[in-house]
């Protein structure tokens, strides 16, 4: 009994309580890489800290462009959540490009093994295939072109735009015009019908070019602009959280010489006026 009492007493002198499981402690990361912004915002929580968020956390955040190898450092800031609590938001200056791959890493200061990371891959733009160019109504001179964004799918963010880069040969100025278009889904991808004649006539009118002047305007580029967002998130390794992305895409295509002739445009596609 005395021995038991002594044992109980000795253990009773120690009143310390350590609730933490041993091992590395990681982070919670949440973010959406946004190709529309020059600075990315990533929310970071230290899992070891509880919900009482301190002014500073022992964390360093970097984003590595896996294509170019460029590394961008994040800068910590505090934000107030909708319930009045706080959270840490890291601001990282880098551009998100279609076709890019990025590695987000958060490392505990002084503990390089306590690292949480996520890899986010942004897909490349969809390729364009011209299906057919035809007059609608027949013999009306109104050219329509039906193109397919191969493997394209919905949803998209915002409208799809047809964008023309046109040079006024008289003034030498470059102008950009955009026209919204609806898309339809098909087994091959997204299908668009583009009213080429109507759109070019709008451009002529806007620039004050006579309808029959087929040397006044040079087409430098035509492309489809659309914005996509991730439908699935990228998980965080050695931590919790998720990442998404949202980026504008551009899928150009080339109008053939016959079409350009019918539209009364000089071919400057491929990077400049033809000599």
């Amino acid at each position, binding site marked *: 009994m005395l021995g*038991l009492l002594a044992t109980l007493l000795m253990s009773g002198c120690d009143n310390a309580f350590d609730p933490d499981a041993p091992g590395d402690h990681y982070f919670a990361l949440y*973010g959406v890489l946004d190709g529309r912004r020059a600075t990315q915002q990533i929310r970071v929580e230290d899992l*070891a800290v509880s919900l009482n968020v301190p002014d500073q956390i022992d964390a360093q955040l970097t984003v590595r462009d896996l294509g170019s190898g460029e590394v961008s450092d994040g800068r910590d800031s505090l934000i107030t959540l909708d319930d009045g609590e706080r959270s840490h938001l890291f601001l990282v200056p880098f551009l998100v490009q279609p076709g890019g791959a990025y590695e987000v890493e958060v490392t505990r200061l002084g503990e390089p093994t306590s690292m949480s990371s996520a890899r986010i891959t942004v897909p490349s733009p969809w390729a364009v295939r011209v299906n057919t160019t035809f007059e609608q109504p027949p013999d009306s001179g109104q050219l329509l072109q039906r193109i397919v964004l191969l493997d394209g799918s919905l949803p998209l963010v915002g409208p799809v735009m047809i964008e023309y880069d046109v040079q006024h040969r008289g003034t030498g100025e470059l102008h950009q015009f955009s026209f919204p278009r609806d898309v339809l889904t098909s087994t091959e991808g997204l299908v668009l019908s583009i009213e080429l004649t109507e759109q070019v006539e709008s451009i002529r009118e806007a620039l004050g070019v006579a309808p029959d002047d087929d040397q006044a305007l040079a087409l430098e580029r035509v492309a489809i602009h659309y914005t996509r967002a991730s439908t699935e998130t990228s998980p965080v390794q050695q931590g*919790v959280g998720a990442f998404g992305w*949202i980026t504008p895409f551009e899928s150009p295509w080339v109008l053939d010489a016959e079409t350009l002739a019918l539209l009364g445009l000089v071919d400057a596609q491929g990077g400049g006026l033809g000599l």
Partner: protein
Amino acid sequence: MLVSSGVFAQEARFADPARLVGVVRDAESSAPLTGAAVLLAAADSMTYGAATDERGQYTIAAVPSGRYALTVSFLGYEPFRDSLMLREGEERALPVALSPVPAELTGVTVEAAPPVTSPVGLIRVRPADFAILPTPDPTGDLASVLTLQPGVVNLGDRGGELYVRGGLPTENLVLVDGMRLFRPFHIVGFYSAVPTDIIQYADVYAGGFGARYGGRISSVVDVTTQTGSKQRFRGSASVAPFLTAVHVDGPLAPGHVSFVASARESVIERLGESVLGEPFPYRFGDLFGKVHARLSPTAFFTASGLVTHDEGALSGTLTGENHIEWSNAAGAARFFYMPPTLASALDVSISYSDYTSSFAPEFGPERASRVTSFGGEFALDYLLGAHEVRLAFAGQTLLFDFTSAEVEGLLEDNVTEGTAYVDTRFEFDRVQIEPGIRFQFFPSQARSVSIEPRLRTAWTPVRDQTISVAVGRYRQEVLGLSELQDIGDVFTIWAGVPAGRPLPTAVHLVAGWQGRLGARAQAGVEGYIKDLSGMALLVGDRGVVYTDGLVRGLDLRASAERGVLRGDVVYGYSATTYTDNLGTYRPPHDRRHRLGLVGSIEAGQWRLRARWQVAAGGPFTRIVGSYRALDSLDPDGEFLTDPGRPVLLTESTPFVGRTPSYHRLDLSVERVFAFRAATLTLHGSLVNAYDRPNFFYYDALRANRIDQFPLIPTLGLRVEVE
């Protein structure tokens, strides 16, 4: 039981012996006296005797015809003496009323040590047992006695939950005059729903209970309250920092009908900060009433009612985050009749109980639970010489209503059960055997009949030395789910066991020795095993987990008194393991060692009491981390300020960590001032006298350690008037 143990009985020698039966009561209050000695002395010095049971009833069987000197005695009462002639085969009913004598604090002479009769697993608590324990106020409470017991664990001084020999709080059956209480303890752990003033006695079965109790698999606390004085009015009032209390009892129809009324209400939430320097966000109280009608010397009717309320926050403020509240409302009525010419008794009772609770955590949706039960029992007791057979039929319906995302759609919302049991008691020379069997029927759930055999036996080889064994099978049809990993979450969901799942079941084996060591000391040792199966637990994000368990333990107790001094030592070792899809582990209430030392001095008008308890720490699940989970990422960035959903990450292997050990010293001192018609008691106490920061629980989302109560000095006053 109707027949008391024959402490002094001698072997019957003659044909057609006579039998003497009766009830011994307090002449003023008509309260039955338990343990009164009834002695028949013949001219040839042959003696026959018995001690009264919990109902004050005695039976002296197998008495040869002849003339005897009858003596009935009980400590604190004038002895009753008479002579009587018993004829061959006569059965005489002889009720006895003893007149109390004024109690003296000094010079009380005990001519003979009271017999040790408590069989294994049973702790019989009487008001005198409260007198040795320090309490934070002058009134005392059943909780102070219960928490002293070696096999009883309370995880903290808040929350109102007791674990008895490895069983969960929801596996304890707590009855007050037959009223079933689903949460019998207040949010401040010093207090139960039963103040000392109203307790006549309480039987606490830590295991191995007989067939008359069912519906729970761990323990039974059966409280019988005072009946009130049928001769004069009595009252008391007390004030102390924790609560105020008022008690009144007296005659409604002198000599026939009496009442008891008691009310307690906490004041600690108002006084805590100003008097003790820190907030105590707890509010609780209880209200009790009883009417007792003595219809004849062997028949009575009684009706009781009890209402309790509790609210508070184990962390935070009274009305702020983590607010919990609950209430009990219960009532019962009982009719008991023992015909004077028949060796039998009729015992009919009905009861109703309603328990409501709600919990508003800081993070997460509000939860609510309600259980309503009503039922009745019809029992017949048959006396067969020195033996007794009780045959009973009972029925109960429980209705559940709960709001909790973790269990929605998983549990039954009503249970109806029928019960039939046979509980017997056979008295031989030195052996007492109590076999019984209980049948439970579940018509609302189409379950097969549950058959629950029970056996209790005691052997007294020499006087005041008893060896006893109890074994039994137990089942319960209701579940009480509390978050197992979060000690601070004391909210409980009550519901029926889902159809298709087996009922929680336990098999108990208890064996022990109790004995007197000289005239002034007694000791006991008791070992137990409980095999558990089918229990339901709520474990974090794993939801409802069905588990089996094994409990093994050993309780040691010893007490001694010398003059004005009394000392008690209790030690309990208990090992509980659970096995389920989480693995094999020790649950949080598995506190392997508990040691309690109690000392009291009664010197003149002064009473000094001390209690020191030590307990080993218990298991807990370690924390990996916490964060705010975002369920969707809006491309436009609105998620950046979304508060999210708080998530606690815990270690995949649960209950690996260990909390610190616990020890606490409580002291109290009283000075009694006796006046002609009143008694004034000044009470002072120190709870946690050396201010040890004992760990209670850890709020992981806030990284906040909550300790048990610090040093609390109290000063109280009690006035008793008669």
